[in-house]
């Protein structure tokens, strides 16, 4: 049973445009959410996180939005750059620490020049 769902396995965007990656979760106990970016042959790299007490967190070109009532979060990248092309994993934890990160299956983002 997939508790963190990324329903789009892939996304293709033009350079300079906005990339929006979506993530849904089913476990209402999750209260800390993270986005990781992964290049081939490398480990996941932490990108940005958000606690359930917030609905938005911004870091440069990356913004994460959280809608707790809908159990939905999204990652916005603007403007998108070719170097952003990677697999993006949404992850969640029940909080009180980062143990047992539960990952989605990832979305492969391709940013075309």
């Amino acid at each position, binding site marked *: 049973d997939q508790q*963190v769902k990324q329903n789009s396995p892939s996304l293709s965007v033009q350079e300079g445009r906005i990339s929006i990656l979506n993530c849904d979760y089913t476990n209402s106990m999750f209260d*800390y959410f*993270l986005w*990781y970016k992964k290049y081939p*042959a*490398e*480990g*996941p*790299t*932490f990108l940005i*996180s958000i*606690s359930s007490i917030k609905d938005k967190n911004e870091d440069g070109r990356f913004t994460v939005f959280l809608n707790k009532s809908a159990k939905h979060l999204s990652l916005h990248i603007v403007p998108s750059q070719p170097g952003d092309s990677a697999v993006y*994993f949404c992850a969640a934890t029940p*909080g*009180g*620490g*980062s*143990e*047992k*990160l*539960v*990952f*989605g*299956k*990832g979305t492969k983002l391709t940013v075309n020049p």
Partner: protein
Amino acid sequence: AAGVIQSPRHLIKEKRETATLKCYPIPRHDTVYWYQQGPGQDPQFLISFYEKMQSDKGSIPDRFSAQQFSDYHSELNMSSLELGDSALYFCASSEDRGGDSPLHFGNGTRLTVT
């Protein structure tokens, strides 16, 4: 900045053999986590250690064991290897188990069992 170091990067073993994977966390990180990622799958949590004590356990087979040493590095020992154990094994570390602290991952060990 120093990152999580894993060794070896690649490992090829035969069925029923034993493998040991090593992980060196980021300095001053006291919590280590092991994840397994099969082909086309999301990373699955195996086990974690905080201050050298096992802190949580996930879907880790009984054939696997792990420990964290006094210098905070960790080793994942895998015995009686099976073909299905072929996967990427990631180690991650974090600096604050009690708070919202992101995990930082190493580049993984790719284990191939033949």
